[in-house]
């Protein structure tokens, strides 16, 4: 190619008008993404914005309902990840997919081992692996003969990238590659990614971490609610502008009125200095009649906190009280007996027994508690209270997301739960059903339930919560009153230094009040 002065590099990858629906829920809507040769291009967005789905479409895991993909200007269709690999699109998934009991070289060339007359040519394979590792500048720290399971996670990640490079891609997708890395390891990884860019590779970098995106990338495409908001030059935006692009939006539906101050009652569930796994020093009070919104980035410990309050994870530090009495929750059974209920983030894998009926799923917890508990409740009343109509013999897998959530909610009404933990209560639920779930939550609070609502959707947190608690890196980063802005929450969640001190102080006061 002739040395061109400064026109934009040619577009290597173009995705145009990509749309995708899953089970009637629109996940991507008319999304456009263009990547130039030799750039690091970030795809950003909140949890659930559609980043992962877009990448899965790019690499042939999912097929788009509409839209087209072009590589070097030629249209392509991938029905299988192998086709994408052959065309020069490689991905490194967030979860590592290596075989721990095989060597580095065997993992890289799995199924494509160089052969000689009899069997695998180990020497050639090891050499080729070393060359790939050298492209990352990692040939000195990783031997092709090491067992992958013996390597630290950061190095396993490099093996995964080397494996992706072995397909000689033109486009390399890195899906949240830093989730398990320490800051020092992140910097080292970034050096290696820049090296690949210098070799002319186009890198798509999926993340929601602001700092990393600013450090590493050339351009940013922001997704929100399955739509492309904008594509910007990284050098031309600042943190505030980017946060605004990610979260700024109209309130898209009506939220029920908040609790009147007089209606908020005594503390039902409280933890002090709670810790387990990545959680540490968590103080939290849930009061009757109040909805507490719990916000934080993915990986900040929100779901872990929900499981801890429900006895699904044992508390290793701190104390917990239910209605003023110190309790140890050794299992969900104990928590349920104490009147706590958890609506899990993933209804299908953790909430429902999909092939069982509405009745069986509704009564599951009450039945497991004992004869008396199952006798007391009338199914028709329960379903009435959550406004679920239709037959009770339907298998729940045929229900819409909203109605499935109502079944799980009815399950906790059946056990008489007074503390309800909602983990992403409206994920994957359409707008109409969202509003009715929100109304139900408020009704329950008004009837005296203490509610903790975890949500990645900031408008939901702001619209519903009487008080907002923000988690960061396993502990409470701060607490905000009802009606705080999205920017305030995001700044606490991402840890902008100037805000944190003040907010943490406020939280301590709020906690002991």
């Amino acid at each position, binding site marked *: 190619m002739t040395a061109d002065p400064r026109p934009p590099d040619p577009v290597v990858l173009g995705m145009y008008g990509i749309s995708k629906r899953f089970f009637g829920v629109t996940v991507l809507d008319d999304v456009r993404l263009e990547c130039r040769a030799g750039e690091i291009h970030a795809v950003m967005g909140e949890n659930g914005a559609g980043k992962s789905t877009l990448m899965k479409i790019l690499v042939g895991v999912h097929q788009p309902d509409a839209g087209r993909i072009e590589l070097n200007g030629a249209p392509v269709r991938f029905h299988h990840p192998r086709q994408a690999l052959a065309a020069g699109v490689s991905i490194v998934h967030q979860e590592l997919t290596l075989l721990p009991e095989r060597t580095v070289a065997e993992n890289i060339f799995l199924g494509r081992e160089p052969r000689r007359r009899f069997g695998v040519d180990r020497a050639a394979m090891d050499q080729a692996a070393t060359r790939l590792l050298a492209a990352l500048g990692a040939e000195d720290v990783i031997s092709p003969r090491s067992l992958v399971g013996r390597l630290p996670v950061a190095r396993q990640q490099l093996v995964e990238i080397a494996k992706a490079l072995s397909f000689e891609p033109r486009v390399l997708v890195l899906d949240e590659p830093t989730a398990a890395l320490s800051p020092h390891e992140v910097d080292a990884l970034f050096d290696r990614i820049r090296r690949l860019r210098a070799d002319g590779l186009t890198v798509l970098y999926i993340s929601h971490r602001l700092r990393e995106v600013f450090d590493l990338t050339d351009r940013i495409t922001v997704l929100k609610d399955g739509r492309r908001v904008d594509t910007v030059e990284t050098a031309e935006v600042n943190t505030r502008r980017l946060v605004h692009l990610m979260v700024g939006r109209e309130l898209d539906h009506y939220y029920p009125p908040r609790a009147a101050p007089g209606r908020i009652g005594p503390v039902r569930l409280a933890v002090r200095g709670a810790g387990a796994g990545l959680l540490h020093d968590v103080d939290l009070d849930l009061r009757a009649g109040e909805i507490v919104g719990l916000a934080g980035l993915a990986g900040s410990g929100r779901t872990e906190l929900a499981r801890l309050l429900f006895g699904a994870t044992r508390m290793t530090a701190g104390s917990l009280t239910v209605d003023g009495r110190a309790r140890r929750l050794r299992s969900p059974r104990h928590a349920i007996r104490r009147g706590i209920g958890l609506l899990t983030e993933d209804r299908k894998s953790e909430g429902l027994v999909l092939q069982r009926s509405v*009745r069986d799923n509704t009564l599951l917890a009450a039945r497991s508690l004992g004869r008396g508990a199952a006798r007391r409740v009338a199914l*028709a009343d329960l379903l009435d209270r959550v406004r679920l109509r239709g037959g009770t013999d339907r298998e729940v897998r045929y229900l819409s997301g909203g109605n499935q959530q109502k079944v799980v909610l009815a399950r906790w009404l059946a056990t008489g739960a007074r503390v309800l933990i909602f983990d992403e209560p409206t994920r994957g639920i359409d707008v109409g059903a969202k509003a009715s779930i929100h109304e139900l939550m408020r009704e329950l609070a008004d009837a005296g339930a203490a509610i903790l609502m975890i949500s990645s959707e900031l408008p939901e947190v702001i619209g519903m919560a009487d008080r907002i608690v923000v988690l960061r890196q396993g502990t409470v980063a701060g607490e905000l009153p009802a009606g705080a802005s999205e920017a305030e929450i995001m700044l606490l969640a991402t840890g902008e230094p100037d805000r944190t001190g003040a907010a943490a102080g406020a939280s301590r006061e709020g906690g002991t009040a």
Partner: protein
Amino acid sequence: MTTTAGPPAAPGAQPSAVPRGEPAGPRARRLLRAVPPIWLVLAAVILLIAWRNPTFVEPAPFLAFLRRCAPLAVLAAGQVFVIIAGEFDLSVGALVTAVVVVAARLSDGDAAHTWWLIPLLLAAGALVGLVNGLVTTRLRVPSFIATLGMLLVLSGAVFLWSGGAPRGSLADNFRQFGRFGVELPGLGQLPYAVLTLTAVGIGLWLLLSHSRFGHQVYAAGGNPQAAALSGVDVRRVRTAAFVISGLSAVVAGILLGGFTGVTAEAGAGYEFQAIAAVVLGGAVLGGGRGSVGASVAGALTLQSVFTLLNLLGLAKSLRDAVQGLIIIGAAAYAAHRLRRSG
């Protein structure tokens, strides 16, 4: 007995009671869909047999056929608990053998021993199930391995104890359960085995489909995480399923003792036939689906297919091959149906 809270939805008041995703056909077709398909297959096979051999469906030969089916059907009715809970029980065949051999050796034909022997055998069966369950749920050994190990331990112990040549004989009052029956005027003998099967079948059906425990079995196999997060003690439920399977194997062994010899091969192959029967009945390996009734029907179907092969003059050695084809076919059909409706 039933703890199903709340009245079932009145069909008239709920016009939208037809599940979404399932075509609403005319009433007759919908009724037909409600019948597990294995009953239709069973009826078809029996009709085929009757076509070749009309006496088969006369009361006496048919009751004799049911008597022959009873041990397998009882085994299947117990095995289905384990399968629905998401596990396997491969130890039942060896347990059946052990029941026959141990009973013969301990009683040596003396009728006076039968009345303490049966409770003892049941207790031993429950213990075997308990060990299977605890090894699977507490030591986290996959049940396939745990019960395969139990199979080998049991058959080894039987071999060791009997020196390879089982001695003794079964008392007549022990054998009567599998051999004799109640005289019915005009119909011949109603075998005790058929009565036992009916009682065990109804009892286990009530337990599985109409008790709190049964619902927890389905939940523990259908989605263990969701079940645990709803307060179900998944490990205890699974262990109980193994105990039920062990008890049913003892009952099957007692019935089988009525018409088989005292050999170290008395129950050989029954574990696979029981699993085949359960799969034929529409249960899904991996858990969450299945029923006692359909498993019993699966057992009857398997036996009637063997009868049919016999009738067509095919070698007995073909049985195993046919059984294998049936299992694969039934599992493929179930997977296909699930995919279509899922």
